[in-house]
């Protein structure tokens, strides 16, 4: 993540300005391989090492939760310039400020847990 610069605020900003192919290339190439790999797993019915089904359950059907939740996430992603994975990478890289973002993310998760039942899903 660090080496590909996907953890860089600049790259996230640039992505939302459509300024470079870099981030789209990362997500796109991961996705192309991912789609092919998952199809192979399903066709050949490959099991995980302990013999259980792979965790490829269909997600729940809903539009509101994915769209609204997604938009909220996107606002935060662009504001903080980091999504959950890179946050830890940046913490390891020694950026003290990212700890505030991580703290915010934990609190945000907690708030969701509190109001979950009152939100449209």
């Amino acid at each position, binding site marked *: 993540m660090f080496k590909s610069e996907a953890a860089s605020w600049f790259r996230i900003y640039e992505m939302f300005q459509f*300024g470079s192919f870099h981030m789209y290339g990362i997500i796109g190439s991961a996705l192309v*391989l991912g789609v092919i790999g998952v199809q192979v797993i399903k066709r050949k019915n490959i099991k995980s090492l302990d013999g259980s089904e792979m965790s490829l359950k269909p997600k729940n059907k809903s539009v509101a939760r994915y769209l609204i939740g*997604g938009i909220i996430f996107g*606002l935060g*992603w662009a*504001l903080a310039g980091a999504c959950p*994975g890179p946050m830890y990478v940046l913490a390891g890289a020694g950026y003290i400020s990212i700890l505030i973002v991580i703290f915010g*993310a934990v609190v945000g998760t907690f708030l969701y847990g509190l109001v979950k039942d009152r939100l449209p899903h």
Partner: protein
Amino acid sequence: MDLIYEPWPWYVAGPLIALVMFVLLLVGKQFGMSSNLRTACAAVGAGKTADFFKFDWKSERWNLMVVLGAIIGGFIASNYMSDGTVEINPEIAQQLSDDYQINSAGEAYLPPEIFATDALGDPFIISVLLIGGLLVGFGARYAGGCTSGHAISGLSNLQLPSLIAVIGFFIGGLVMVHLLYPLIF
């Protein structure tokens, strides 16, 4: 030595991400970074206040190992394998400088205007970081996943909900960068 310090191009990073996902699937897990935020909440006792955090978090401890791995990876990469700069599209760098006085593109990994430890004395910067984090945490759980869980795992499995979520990510991101940044910064 350049090979070590140069950033990895997308066609190296993307396939590596896919590889991580398949390794996790192979050991019976799912690729998703934001779930550990819920695990963290449960681990510090949030189950007492909301049912959402009442689950066997100890069975999700592997998730925290992934976090640990990411931290170690970040430490190694930043200290030994990087010159700590990110070159972006010069037009975007110029625009950042003109519109927001962020002049560090090409010189830093994160803009010191926002992420320097000194900037933490500024309540405005603290609010930006805190609110950004809050939105990410809240949104990720509401949407049931983040970039890794939806954009990579979910779309790889051709899940319509993940497509809706990813469209949401981009609506949110574009609104923030194009409409709200001029108001905030």
